[in-house]
C-alpha cells in the first residue's frame, strides 16, 4: 500500500462570519504517524479536520499534503479519505457496493471493484457480511465498513472524525486496539479527532490539544502528561492538580502542576518538601486505586490518587483533616 503523507498546516484559519473557529494554527504531522486532535467541543478540532479533508473551505493560510499546497483541491485529489462520525454509509447499497463506491466513481469495471471491495472487507473482518445493507449491521460493524470504504482509495492520510464516540465502552476499547493495529499494518498517516484524552493517550504518536481555535500544546502523549505547558492542558489531560502561584508554602511564584498520583497523605511526620492541609470532600474507590478530593486553600480542585494498599494502610474518611505532601521535583511549573 501507499506510504503515508506528511500533513502541514501553515497559519491555517477558519472563520464563519465573525466567529473564528480555527485561529491561525501551525502544525506538522510526520508521514505515517498517528495524530490525535484533542479538545473540548467547540475548540476547532473538527473544523481543522474538515479543512484537511476538503469539506470546509480554508479562510486563510495554507494546507500542505506531501509537498503540495492542496487548499483548493477536491477531497479525492488530496489523497485523503475521511471516516465520518455517523459513518455515512449509503443506506441503499450493501457493504460491497458501499466499499466499492469510489472505485465505481473512477470507472473501475464491476468485477474488479467487487473483488477489491471484498478484499478490503476481509481486511476489516467483515467479509461474511458483504451482502448486508448498513441497516442490518451493528454500530461496530458499520464502523468497520466505513473504515474499509475510506481505505479502498489507498489514501496517504486517513481522517477520522470522533470514530469511537458512538460505540459502547467495551467496543470502544476493542476498536481502539484495532485502529492501532491497522495503523501499524498499513503505515499511512492517521489524523483522529477526539474529545477523550484516554483515546488520545492510547493511540497517538502526536497529541495536539486545542482550545478556542488555537493549539495549546502538541507533542507525544507522554510529554503532554509529564510536561503540560499550560493549566488548560494539565486540566484537560487529567491526573494533575493545578496550584496557583505562591498559594501554598514552599512553591514557586508561578502557577504549577502536580500529578495527583505523586501526592502522599499522612500526619505531622510526612517526609515531603511541600505540605498542605485540607479536608476530605469526597472519596471514590476505583479498585486498584482510591481517588480522594480535598478542599485545599490555593487550588480549586485538589485530587489525590492513592494506591489501594497504601490507602488502606492508613484510611481516612470524608470530613477528616489530612496533611498532603509532595516532593519538590514533582512540581511542574506552568506557562499559563
Amino acid at each position, binding site marked *: 500500500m501507499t506510504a503515508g503523507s506528511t500533513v502541514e498546516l501553515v497559519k491555517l484559519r477558519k472563520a464563519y462570519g465573525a466567529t473564528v473557529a480555527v485561529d491561525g494554527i501551525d502544525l506538522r504531522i510526520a508521514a505515517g504517524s498517528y495524530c490525535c486532535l484533542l479538545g473540548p467541543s467547540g475548540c476547532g478540532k473538527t473544523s481543522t479536520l474538515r479543512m484537511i479533508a476538503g469539506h470546509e473551505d480554508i479562510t486563510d493560510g495554507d494546507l500542505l499534503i506531501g509537498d503540495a499546497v492542496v487548499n483548493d483541491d477536491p477531497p479525492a485529489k488530496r489523497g485523503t479519505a475521511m471516516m465520518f462520525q455517523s459513518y455515512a454509509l*449509503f443506506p441503499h447499497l450493501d457493504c460491497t457496493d458501499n466499499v466499492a463506491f469510489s472505485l465505481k466513481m473512477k470507472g473501475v469495471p464491476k468485477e474488479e471493484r467487487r473483488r477489491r471491495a471484498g478484499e478490503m472487507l476481509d481486511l476489516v473482518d467483515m467479509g461474511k457480511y458483504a451482502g448486508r445493507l448498513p441497516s442490518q449491521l451493528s454500530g461496530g460493524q458499520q464502523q468497520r465498513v466505513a473504515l474499509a470504504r475510506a481505505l479502498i482509495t489507498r489514501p496517504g492520510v486517513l481522517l477520522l472524525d470522533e470514530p469511537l464516540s458512538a460505540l459502547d465502552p467495551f467496543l470502544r476499547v476493542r476498536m481502539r486496539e484495532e485502529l492501532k493495529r491497522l495503523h501499524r499494518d498499513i503505515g499511512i498517516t492517521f489524523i483522529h479527532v477526539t474529545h477523550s484524552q484516554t483515546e488520545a493517550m492510547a493511540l497517538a504518536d502526536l497529541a495536539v490539544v486545542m482550545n478556542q481555535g488555537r493549539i495549546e500544546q502538541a507533542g507525544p502523549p507522554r510529554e503532554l502528561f509529564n510536561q503540560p505547558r499550560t493549566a488548560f492542558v494539565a486540566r484537560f489531560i487529567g491526573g494533575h492538580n493545578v496550584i496557583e502561584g505562591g498559594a501554598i508554602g514552599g512553591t514557586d511564584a508561578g502557577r504549577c502542576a502536580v500529578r495527583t498520583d505523586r501526592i502522599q497523605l499522612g500526619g505531622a511526620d510526612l517526609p515531603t518538601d511541600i505540605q498542605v492541609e485540607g479536608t476530605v470532600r469526597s472519596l471514590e474507590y476505583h479498585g486498584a486505586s482510591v481517588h480522594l478530593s480535598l478542599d485545599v486553600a490555593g487550588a480549586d480542585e485538589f485530587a489525590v490518587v492513592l494506591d489501594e494498599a497504601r490507602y488502606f494502610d492508613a484510611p481516612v474518611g470524608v470530613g477528616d483533616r489530612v496533611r498532603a505532601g509532595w516532593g519538590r521535583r514533582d512540581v511542574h511549573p506552568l506557562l499559563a
Partner: protein
Amino acid sequence: MTLTAETSRPSATAAAGRARRVRLAPRLAPYLQAAPLTVTLLLFLLVPILTIVVVSFWDYDSVRFYPDFVLTNYTELLTSPVTWKTYLNTLKYAALSWAITLGIGFTVAYFLAFHVRSTTWQMLLFLVCTIPFWTSNIIRMISWIPFLGRNGLLNSGLISAGIIDRPLEFLLFSDFSVVLAFVHLYALFMVVPIFNSMMRIDRALIEAARDGGASAVQTLWNVILPLSKPGIAIGSIFVVTLVMGDFITVRLMSGGQSASIGLMIANEISLLQYPAAAANAVVLLAVVLIMVVAMLRVVDIRKEL
C-alpha cells in the same frame, strides 16, 4: 386505560355488579376504537364500489336500467375499438404528464433541498410553489384559454414580435394544451413527496460521496436519485391516478376533440347508460390498481409512511 384502572380498585359494596358490566369493556374497547373509521370506509368506499360492480352487470335500454346479470356491458366495452383507442389516449396523457411532472418535480425539489441553504428561504419558496393551489382547478385551466388561443396573448405576442406570421394552431385545443394543463395542475404533487424524501437524506452522505471522488452529477445519480425513489413513487402514484381518472381537463383543454376514459364514462352517464358507465369504471379501477401495484413493486415506499 381508564376502564381497567377503575376496575382495579372497586368500592367494596358495588363491586360485584359493576365489575361484571365493566369487564366486557376492555375486550370491546379496541373494536369500538376502530369502529368509526371502519364504518366510514364501509359506507363511503366499499359500499359505493360494490354498488358500481353490481350495477355493471345490470341491463339497460334507452329509457331505463334494471337488475339482471348480463356480461354485455363488459363484452361491448372490451370489444369496441373506441375503448382501446381511448385507453391508449389516456395512457399517453398519463405517460407524458408523468414524465414532465417528474422532471419538473425532481428539479424543483433538488433545488429547494440542496441549493437553498437557509430554512427560512426553503419554506418561503416552498409556499410560493403552493400559490397556484389557492384557486380552483377549473379557473386555473380556463385561464390558459385566453393565453393560448388563436388570437391569445402568446400568439399575438409572437406575431407582433415578428417571430411567426401565422398563429400557432397547436397551442390550444390539442394534446399539447391538455398535457400542459395536467402538468400545471399536478406538478406540485410530484414536488412535495420528492422534496420530503430529499430532506431526509443525511448531508454527510453527500460529503461521503464527494470524499469518494464523485462529481456532482455522479452524486446525483448514485446517491440522491436512489434515495429519492420513495418520494418519486408516491408522486407518481398521485399524478398517474389523477390523470387516469380525469375528464374535465381533457374536455376543456382539448375543446372536445380528444377523449379520455373519464370523459367516456361521463358521456355514458349523461346518456343514462349507467350499467355501461359502471362496467367502464370497474375496468378503469382495475387498470389503475395494476399500475399502482406495479409502481409499488419497483419502489419500497414503506419507510416514507
